[in-house]
């Protein structure tokens, strides 16, 4: 982007800035020499340029110090720019009473070019134009001799901003932020970024996977054994039945007992169903419960509850102008009615109580149905116990008389049944999915297949997350290091380019002694062909180095900035002035130079031979009372005899 200054305007500011409006034209000439005697606002104008370019807040004491005199209460500074040939105005309005300074901006391309509050230069420029950089192109010439000590950081900052290296730094920070975000996202699952943590997660996952394999193996083994035993049990039971069937008398008794047991089971089931039905009707569970319900019903009848007047009646009454007795209802009474209505049952609550009263009335039992059903159940249980004892005794007698073969079969049956019970329990422990049962049996992932599957899945997920995170972190570190190296390399290259360019210029300016910048470190380290390292430079040499460095820094940047300099040659001897005046201007697309009359010789007169279309000469002369006269043209410039003329 090409940035040019096309003019500036001051109103009610101190020095000679009570009413100044300088128009440099659009496009402005390449070089503008502004001859202005000391005390007419040169330093103030430079500082206002810096504020205009940075949009920085202006302290109240600085604002109040800008006041032309006590007769004025407000003032203004306007910096007119051209941004890629688009006009733009930055206006600073001063209120000297409050010390406030308000920025506003007018851009032709935006909203019809009207003034908008705020400092609103385009985004790229906003990021670029920070005070340290602006001070390098709105430059105080009297400080040029100190430029060698601007330091590496200042030079680095300027190079980064001018050559747009900061997005690389931003990219590095974005990568760091992405890693942090990703880490936060997965930290609920796994906090493993380190190799050791990854190994631990892998070990944990493998333990769960191995346990799963082991448990499945056990399940298969137990299931196979159970199937074999069940099959054998059926054979043994059939053999036993076949042998027992030969004892016809006992077999008949056995059949009768089994028939009685079946009938008993039906009666037990009936008793259980009766007990359950009674249990689900609280009034039938026990006389005590029945009595309580009865008493509550009686209490409600005695108390005439529920009230026939409901809460809603009072709420509605409070909304009326008059009471039911015809008296008017005051606001106070209305409030009391509403607040006390909360003590009455609402209509829905009345309905519940009426249902309750009805339920109690419709329930004429004596409250013993459950207990009676359970007494019946208890009797059936005793009957079943007796029948089972008789059947067991009969079978024992049949076994005793059945010979060795039957005894052996019965023993085998008992062994198989015992082993089957163990297997069933073991299989339940391995396979139950019921959380209650898992808890009751104190099962964990090492003993129960469903729990083990859950653990294995969870650990696999954590391991995969951690593995991906670790990979992500390693790649991010690599990318971060590439970005850092790129930035560092770019900086080194650009610094070297600036150094070379500075030395090329120095070779032209300082022909007597070939000075060169050896390194850009904390400062500009100088060397000479004659004495090697050279720390002590003459004032002229210092200034030459400063301009060579500054111009080299600014000239190749993607942003073409104007160079505004105050007193560029005041401390140079005439010969060096002439050389500086011949050389430096060619480095910039726009250069505005504030000079005093004593700088004309050597420096300013080096411009006289240049094409008049490229040089603007402005001379600002005092008229008294803070007013100035601006004269244009070379002759007025050349002939001006200000108080600074030597």
């Amino acid at each position, binding site marked *: 982007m090409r940035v040019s200054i096309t003019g500036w305007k001051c109103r009610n500011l101190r020095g000679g800035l009570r009413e100044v409006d300088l128009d440099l034209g659009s496009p402005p000439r390449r070089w503008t020499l502004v001859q202005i005697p000391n005390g007419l606002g040169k330093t103030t104008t430079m500082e206002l340029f810096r504020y205009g370019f940075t949009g920085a807040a202006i302290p109240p004491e600085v604002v109040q110090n800008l006041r032309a005199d006590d007769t004025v209460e407000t003032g203004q500074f306007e910096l007119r720019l051209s941004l890629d040939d688009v006009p733009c105005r930055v206006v600073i309005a001063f209120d000297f009473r409050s010390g406030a300074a308000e920025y506003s901006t007018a851009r032709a391309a935006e909203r019809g070019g009207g003034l908008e509050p705020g400092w609103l230069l385009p985004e790229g420029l906003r990021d670029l134009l920070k005070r340290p950089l602006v001070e390098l192109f709105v430059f105080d010439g009297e400080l040029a001799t100190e430029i060698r000590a601007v330091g590496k950081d200042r030079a680095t900052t300027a190079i980064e901003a001018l050559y747009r290296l900061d997005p690389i730094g931003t990219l590095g920070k974005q990568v760091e932020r992405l890693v942090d975000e990703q880490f936060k996202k997965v930290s609920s699952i796994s906090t493993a970024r380190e190799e050791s943590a990854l190994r631990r997660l892998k070990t944990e996952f493998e333990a769960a996977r191995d346990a799963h394999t082991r448990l499945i193996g056990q399940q298969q083994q137990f299931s196979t054994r159970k199937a074999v035993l069940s099959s054998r049990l059926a054979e043994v039971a059939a053999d036993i039945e076949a042998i027992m069937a030969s004892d016809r008398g006992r077999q008949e008794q056995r059949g009768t007992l089994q028939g009685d047991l079946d009938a008993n089971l039906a009666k037990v089931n009936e008793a259980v169903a009766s007990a359950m039905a009674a249990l689900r009707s609280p009034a039938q569970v026990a006389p005590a419960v029945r009595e309580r319900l009865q008493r509550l019903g009686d209490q409600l009848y005695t108390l005439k509850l529920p009230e026939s007047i409901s809460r809603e009646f009072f709420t509605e009454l409070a909304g009326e102008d008059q009471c039911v007795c015809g008296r008017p209802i005051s606001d106070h009474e209305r409030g009391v009615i509403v607040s006390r209505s909360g003590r009455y049952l609402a209509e829905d609550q009345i309905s519940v109580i009426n249902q309750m009263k009805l339920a109690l009335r419709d329930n004429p039992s004596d409250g013993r149905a459950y207990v009676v059903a359970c007494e019946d159940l208890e009797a059936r249980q005793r009957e079943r116990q007796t029948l089972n004892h008789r059947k067991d005794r009969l079978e024992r007698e049949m076994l005793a008389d059945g010979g060795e073969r039957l005894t052996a079969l019965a023993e085998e049956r008992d062994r198989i049944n015992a082993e089957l019970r163990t297997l069933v329990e073991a299989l339940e422990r391995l396979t139950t999915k019921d959380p*209650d*049962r898992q808890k009751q049996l104190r099962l964990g992932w090492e003993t129960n297949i469903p729990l083990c599957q859950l653990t294995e899945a969870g650990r696999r997920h954590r391991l995969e997350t951690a593995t991906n995170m670790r990979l992500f972190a390693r790649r991010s570190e690599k990318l971060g290091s590439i970005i850092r190296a790129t930035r560092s390399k770019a900086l080194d290259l650009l610094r070297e380019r600036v150094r070379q360019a500075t030395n090329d210029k120095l070779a032209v300016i300082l022909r007597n002694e070939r000075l060169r910048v050896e390194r850009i470190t904390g400062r500009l380290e100088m060397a000479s062909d004659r004495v090697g390292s050279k720390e002590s430079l003459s004032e002229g040499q210092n200034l030459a180095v400063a301009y060579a460095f500054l111009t080299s820094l600014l000239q190749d940047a993607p942003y073409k900035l104007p160079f505004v300099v105050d007193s560029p040659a005041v401390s140079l001897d005439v010969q060096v002035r002439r050389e500086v005046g011949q050389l430096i201007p060619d480095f910039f697309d726009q250069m505005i130079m504030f000079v005093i009359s004593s700088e004309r010789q050597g420096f300013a007169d080096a411009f006289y031979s240049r094409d008049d279309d490229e040089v603007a000469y402005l001379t600002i002369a005092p008229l008294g009372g803070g007013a100035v006269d601006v004269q244009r043209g070379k002759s007025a410039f050349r002939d001006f005899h200000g108080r600074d003329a030597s």
Partner: protein
Amino acid sequence: MTFRLPIGARDFFRIRGGRPFGATETGSSRFLIFDAFSCCLLLGFDRRRHGEKDQLEGQDFLPGYPDTHRGQAVIYAGLLVDAELARKDIAPEDRGSVEREMVNLLDLTSSTRLSEAGNDLLNLYAASGFERLRDAATAPSNLEDFLIDYAQLWRVRDADASA
């Protein structure tokens, strides 16, 4: 909050796969978790003392009455009112206080016919009743034994009351 089991009730009633005593029956004779809850509840009402919130499980086991008990909602509500009147020692003839209790505990619009406060109290009474059940009987191994033990508990209670 609707129905919440007392802590320990799952073990006592051998609740597995959502069924107490490993019940395999279907239909109306199947013993439900709510049957277990209501057995606790009746004992809690009878004690006229409720338990504490930390005696309850962290989650509800049922959002409302099952079909088998829905018709008894007002009876449970009545028993709660009766227990609260007794617990707070409200005189039977104190009409205002009785009405206030009902205002606090009842709500026709709720599926349990109870207000939120009433519902919370119901669960706390179940906790108290389970405490009594566990003190009086060992965990039964099957439904038949439980039904008989539970009936015995009420028989003893009635005998004590009439003694």
